């Protein structure tokens, strides 16, 4: 058993895999996408517009908005604030190839992306971020 899990006596449900740019990446239930990517050795999943510098987890607590990622077709979600769920398809890279707006159906897909966990809205990356 993973010594870190033994240390905190964690007894997680059986793991699963999600799709990250076509690769299967293992998930421990309850992990945020940021934690999943980090655990898989993925440190950066987008680049800045000027200079193409790498961006990934910076604050890890929902404040800095650096870890934006596309999940099930919905762009610009904070990886650190979203729980990985079975069937998730994560696309890294730039949020809007060609500078096009997000497709109209994106918000519908977000709602339909699976049942939100208790007190956990999958759309939390949007809107009221200043509280």
């Amino acid at each position, binding site marked *: 058993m993973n010594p870190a899990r033994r240390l905190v006596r964690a007894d997680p449900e059986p793991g699963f895999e999600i799709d990250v740019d076509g690769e299967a990446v293992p998930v421990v239930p309850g992990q945020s996408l940021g934690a999943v990517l980090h655990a898989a050795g993925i440190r950066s999943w987008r680049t*800045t*517009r*000027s*200079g193409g510098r790498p961006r990934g987890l910076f604050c890890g607590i929902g404040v800095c*908005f650096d870890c*934006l990622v596309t999940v099930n077709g919905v*762009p*610009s979600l904070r990886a650190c604030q979203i729980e990985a769920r079975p069937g998730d398809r994560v696309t890294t890279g*730039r*949020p*809007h*190839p*060609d*500078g*096009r*707006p*997000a497709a*109209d159906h994106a918000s519908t897909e977000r709602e339909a992306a699976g049942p939100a966990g208790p007190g956990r809205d999958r759309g939390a*990356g*949007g*809107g*009221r*971020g*200043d*509280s």
Partner: protein
Amino acid sequence: MPDVVVVGAGIVGAACAYYAARAGLDVVVLDRGPVAGGTTGAGEGNVLVSDKEPGPELDLALLSNRLWRELADSGPDGPGPGPAGGGFEFEAKGGLVVAETPPVMEALADLAVKQGVEHAVVEPGRLRDYEPHLAEGLAGGVFYPQDAQVQPMLAAARLIRRGGESFGRGALMLRTGVTVTGFVRDGDRVTGVRTDQGDILAGAVVNAAGTWGGEVAALAGVRVPVLPRRGAILVTEPLERPLIRHKVYTAAYVTAVASDSEGLESSAVVEGTPAGPVLIGASRERVGFDRAVPASVLGRLAAQAVALFPVLAGYKAIRAYCGFRPYCPDHLPVIGEDPRAPGLYHACGHEGAGIGLAPATGHLIAQALTGTRPDLELTPFRPDRFGEETP
């Protein structure tokens, strides 16, 4: 003993420190928080001449505009106005003010003539040459090529660092996490500050505490009425390519800036940033230091921005932030030595224009500190112009 203690490490304090060091003075900058932790870190980085009424504030804005360009061009961090922009993303992008109706368009054109600054009146049919995604049905606009933008937090940090590196070791020292609790006096004269980490004696003290400038003044027993005027900014997800080329705002913004209302006022102010997100303002409310911006305010900002740029409806606003503009009753900043407390200089109360006006303010303060004749008449900005009654 330093020649000058600057209280406040926002953009105005940074500019005062930079120009004082450049004038050969030894400077210590104090802040109770981090660099750019107050209003400097809560704005859009506007460097505007377009929204200024003719008079002392426009004169200050024009001087400052020239100084911003010098700072961006001369920086060791890269020449401007390229992408590096002096190390603080200086962009000479120009501002486009648009009118919804023909009478408003007429007023806009009149104002531009009175201002006497470089501008071009834009016919309705030519608006999309400037901004391809603007809404239909606008009555025209005025383009101001001198309007610019900086990344204000980077600018404050760069000015402080550059001041220390360019003018010799010890010329400029920064101490964060130090709270000023009072002043050291010799009779009326201010001869230093008392802080939670001991007294610091100095030849002069500059109050660059922004929205909290009134509180710092009160520690010296003088009244400088600076009030908070809250503003919120909505931030979109980063865009891959710029959709919005200039700073674009509706004519209503000019009247909102000059208004004295306590209630919510908002008008669309939209611009892209080099990093990709679009910033959407601007709201003005006098609600004290309450940080809880109602969702209705953000909704209104979003709706006004989409009315101006329908294409924005396809993007997500992913966060918002708010700050407190340092507002004086007559909408002018306070710049200069306080005759009621000699040795104490004020550089605060710039309302929503502090980023734009910072270099001129720092330059004029440095001239006052060194006994040089100031480039601009400081009388309209004098600290004792308000009288003693509470507003």
